[in-house]
């Protein structure tokens, strides 16, 4: 691998905001970790508000009044499992109506098309369905709470 090629890779790193890259060609190997500026690119894709005080997010929450509504504090993703996100803004309901049991609970196996919850938006009840078979690992939002676009609703394990 020539210096020119390495330069190109670094350029890519800086431009795309990729954090680390490792390239191996036969016996040649290069490993690069983007730094302060490379990290920034990553930061620009991170959730804005729940920055921990020691993070290097441009404007850290420590010095700023953080918005009271959580701007998508991405939940700790247990074991790197995927999440089911809200496709709309609205109010989350776990059950068809008050007093009835929830559509799903942790441990349930769900099939494609199965209703997982309702998001109420402009008085309309939107049923959110499972897209693939899986097991619900955890419900992330409390009943009746507002959710943003893209907010994680459930952690699930695909089957």
């Amino acid at each position: 691998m020539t210096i020119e090629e390495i330069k190109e890779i670094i350029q890519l790193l800086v431009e795309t905001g990729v954090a680390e890259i490792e390239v191996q060609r036969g016996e040649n190997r290069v490993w690069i970790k983007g730094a302060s500026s490379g990290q920034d690119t990553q930061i620009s894709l991170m959730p804005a508000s729940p920055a921990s005080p020691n993070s290097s997010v441009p404007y850290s929450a420590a010095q700023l009044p953080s918005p009271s509504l959580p701007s998508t504090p991405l939940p700790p993703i247990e074991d790197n499992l995927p999440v089911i996100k809200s496709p709309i803004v609205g109010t989350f309901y776990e059950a068809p109506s008050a007093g009835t049991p929830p559509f799903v609970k942790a441990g349930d196996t769900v099939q494609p098309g199965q209703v997982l919850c309702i998001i109420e938006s402009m008085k309309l009840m939107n049923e959110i369905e499972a897209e693939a078979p899986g097991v619900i690992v955890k419900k992330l939002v409390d009943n009746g709470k507002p959710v943003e676009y893209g907010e994680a609703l459930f952690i699930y394990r695909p089957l």
Partner: protein
Amino acid sequence: MFDKVLIANRGEIALRIICACKELGIRSVAVYSEADRNSLHVRFADEAVCIGPAKSAGSYLDIPSVISAAEITNVNAIHPGYGFLSENADFAEVCQMSGITFIGPRPEVLKLVGLKQSAREAMKTAGVPVLPGSEGILKSAGEALSVAGKVGYPVMLKASAGGGGRGLRVVHSGDDLPNLYSQAQTEAAAAFSCGDLYLEKLVQDPRHIEFQVLADLHGNVEILGERECSLQRRHQKILEEAPSPSVSPQLRQTISETLAGAMRDVGYTNAGTVEFLMDQQGNLYFIEVNARIQVEHPVTEFVTGVDLVKSQILIAAGEPLEQILDSPVAIRGHAIECRINAEHPETFAPSPGRLTALNLPGGIGVRVDTAAYTDCVIPPYYDSMIAKLIAYGHDRAEAIARMRRALDTFVIEGIHSTIPLHQKILADPDFLAGNFHTNYLSNKNWGQAAVSPG
């Protein structure tokens, strides 16, 4: 007064409105697309809600998402800013039905002034000068030919629902008219789902001059002078000033009085702008009403001392104008705004990307409205404006000197910007002499500006 206001916009105008809310002690809710997660309007609002993906059709333009965000955050009112949903009568109507105050005119007034031909009729009735042209919508190319014969060529065919130059054709002779008529009609139908056309006399090398309106809910209307917005590229304003170097105090007063009556007659409320063309003899002709806060509102704020965005909120909350404004509002000094866009200064090619270095000018007589910061990313999804740079002086010469030094100390690296173009304009003898019109930039061959006036 409102407790909490949602700002249905992004970028500098969202931040501008958040600042107005903070000054009024009102809590603010930002909405944002996934591309704007790290934006300053998200950072500085009291609450923020992600409403959709980067593309504005699914976020900033999506009425259900915006209304849902307003409902889950329990706001009293929505400020739409400019662009996006700001002049959307349907949106204003949904707000009304949802019990949320829309900070802008009533839906029916938005509808009236949004249709160019009906706005023109209303203004004409109230005595505001309009361009000679068709009475209402043209029924056929034949009618267009007959009207054009009466007002004299060249004429313009315009889409009634139009904007941004779509459905617009310049006609130089009757021979070309039938062809151009059907082209314009097809284009208008495709762009606005409405092929209605009307016809106006073409003003050669016009100046673009607009008057700022404030109207309260109690029938009081105040005109806060005019802005000169002739410097445009591709029908987009690039540099604005107040007052206009070509409007005399007499003309200002005459138009203001007529306009105040006209806006009262149509039931206009909140802030708005009435756009005029000025011909080479200095006559003004109404072209359209912009029923929202304008990008260039700060030049009026500088010369009148009125905070237009705070005024919008106060008006929507029911405050009468005499509580909001000094009486009488005086025009003092001169202000210029340069739009600093993420564009190549010669080709106007968009230049989105990361600002690797940023130094904002400051000091006496200089105002910057921006949501940019060092290391922020200008996304490719929205308009290209990075910042508005506004300079004030006792007179036009001092405002120009301030603007020059502000441009000299404005550093943007990582992307192209229109700063060099503004530096060229502010050194140009024609600009300095106030000798320009809407074709100024294209005549100078500065950038690839379109030839037809807007």
